[in-house]
């Protein structure tokens, strides 16, 4: 036990005593996540519409009341507007330009003064364009119509953000949006950090011969290995909590309500929900460390070790894409190590979390971790 604690303290102090290592461990993962979450919507936008930037909304035949409304609400939403009369739109339609612009992500909002109806046109093949249209109707058209219905034609008031009445509305929307992306990205980051730490603590040290020097001390080999695994788990858990705090700050600083934002405004979790995530992160980190150590001690050549350590990253990237398009995780998903962690965090974000899900995850993750560690101990002759 004494040896275990010395190793843990040493490994953690190695990170703290060097600012480059500390930044690489604690700040870079959070920064990478923020950058990824900001870039990803643009990437998806480009893949679906061929356009990186958000296109302005083109309004056709808009009544004066609407023009005044958007003038007054300027700056409170992400939308910018192009306005045109019906004749100009007809010309564009005939030239095929409208279809072209729709495909590149432009929304068309067409007012029909005869029927008092509004048609919002978007590219139905693009989920981003559809969600942007839905968001536009929710954020712009509904308040506009409400104000018209309640106050007459011109006089209306802007429904500003009220933290008391609107918080839970925003929260449900924000959490649902974030549930698709944040859980797999968090787990991906956990693995990435564990991978870089364990490759330094085990693979590089073994390559340098320093690991053998540790094995020659009167501390049991199991304690040395476990000490390093626990140290990497503690460091990565700390880094993941910091990332999570970054995430929440970003969410609350993001006032745009853009439908394409992956960290929408108002991300909100209750203390018991946060506690579940706080448990899942170290369990996942410990499991990832056991996976990495097993890979490192199965292979001798340094280049092969690095290559094989990157293989789970490919799996986690694939899982990230799967999570974007999947909705509620099935019960079996909670029993799959690593993937189960994503499923539990996702269930928490969706407010679908049940205690049995966490129990399934803990049993499968801890069981798999023990299995992997025993296999590694046996292979290295640490059980003798």
């Amino acid at each position, binding site marked *: 036990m004494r040896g275990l604690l010395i190793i843990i303290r040493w490994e953690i102090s190695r990170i703290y005593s060097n600012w480059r290592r500390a930044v690489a461990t604690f700040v870079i993962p959070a920064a990478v996540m923020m950058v990824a979450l900001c870039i990803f919507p643009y990437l998806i936008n480009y893949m679906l519409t061929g356009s990186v930037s958000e296109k302005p909304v083109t309004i056709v035949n808009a009544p004066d009341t609407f023009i005044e409304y958007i003038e007054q609400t300027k700056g409170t939403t992400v939308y910018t507007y192009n306005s045109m009369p019906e004749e100009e739109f007809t010309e564009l339609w005939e030239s095929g330009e409208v279809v072209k612009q729709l495909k590149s992500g432009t929304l068309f909002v067409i007012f029909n003064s005869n029927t008092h109806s509004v048609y919002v046109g978007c590219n139905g093949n693009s989920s981003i364009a559809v969600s942007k249209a839905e968001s536009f109707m929710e954020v712009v058209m509904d308040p506009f119509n409400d104000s018209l219905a309640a106050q007459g034609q011109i006089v209306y008031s802007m429904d500003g953000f009220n933290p008391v009445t609107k918080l839970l509305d925003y929260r449900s929307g924000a959490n649902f949006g974030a549930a698709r992306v944040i859980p797999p990205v968090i787990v991906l980051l956990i693995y990435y950090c564990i991978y870089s730490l364990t490759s330094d603590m085990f693979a590089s040290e073994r390559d340098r011969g320093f690991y*053998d*020097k540790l094995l*020659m001390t*009167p501390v*049991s080999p199991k304690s040395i290995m476990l000490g390093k695994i626990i140290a990497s788990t503690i460091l990565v858990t700390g880094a993941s909590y910091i990332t999570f705090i970054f995430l929440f700050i970003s969410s609350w600083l993001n006032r745009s309500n853009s439908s394409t934002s992956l960290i929408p405004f108002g991300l909100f979790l209750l203390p018991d929900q946060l506690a579940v995530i706080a448990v899942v992160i170290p369990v996942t980190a410990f499991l990832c460390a056991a996976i990495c150590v097993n890979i490192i001690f199965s292979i001798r050549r340094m280049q092969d070790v690095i290559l094989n350590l990157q293989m789970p990253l490919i799996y986690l990237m694939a899982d990230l894409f799967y999570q974007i398009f999947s909705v509620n995780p099935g019960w079996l998903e909670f029993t799959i190590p690593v993937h189960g962690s994503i499923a539990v965090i996702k269930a928490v974000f969706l407010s679908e979390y049940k205690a049995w899900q966490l129990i399934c995850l803990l049993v499968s993750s801890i069981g798999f971790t023990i299995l992997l560690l025993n296999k590694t101990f046996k292979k290295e002759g640490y059980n003798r």
Partner: protein
Amino acid sequence: MISVNDVHKSYTRNKETIKGVSFEVKDGMIFGLLGPNGAGKTTLMQMISTLLSPTSGSITIDGLNAKDNLLEIHKRIGYLTTEVRLDPMSTPDKLWDFFGELYGIPREQSLARKEELFGKLGIMPFKDKRINELSTGMKQKASIAISLIHNPPVIIFDEPTNGLDILTSKQVTDYLLELKNEGHSIILSTHIFSVAESLCDEIAILVDGRIVAQGDVESLTRQSEAKNFEEAFFKIYVEHHVEE
């Protein structure tokens, strides 16, 4: 005392790296393992240091075997190889404190020993410099000091002067002689004849995983009817080496 009895080691089923090696090293003696690259010197040293387990045979340190007394043996062994590269971002001073804790040496005793050993090896001027800022010789000295932190009765040095300049090399060999005179048992592997001749009380010549000749420098030279030890080594090697 170190006792190696009929030790075999195979990494693969069909090929033995060490083929039935036996020898004894008494207290206050330097035992040299001499052989070409691939002869099995490092494998043998690692087995004595408990880093590898023999496929068959036994190795005991002061009557203790690794299977039953691993940690006790670690307290009695200091193992050093030139292949060891210390943590590049640490300093000799920090590493000393870390290893002192691992060996369970009381703080005051550790500080006194640090003073003594750092002074003897000339580490004091660079004890607070990072390892990656040190020269090869400085790193090697730091590595030697840390290996001997617990003043072990048994010292195993794999190529102790490899890659060192002549001044540092002399410092290391002088220190080894001092340790020998203090009663430590030392096994060292080398392929430098002058080191073997000047340091070793007994030398075993290892060829293809077997000890093919053993004795002091004079007896080995005499038995081979050679003019000097270097010629004796080559004669013995040619006689016993089998091309695969």
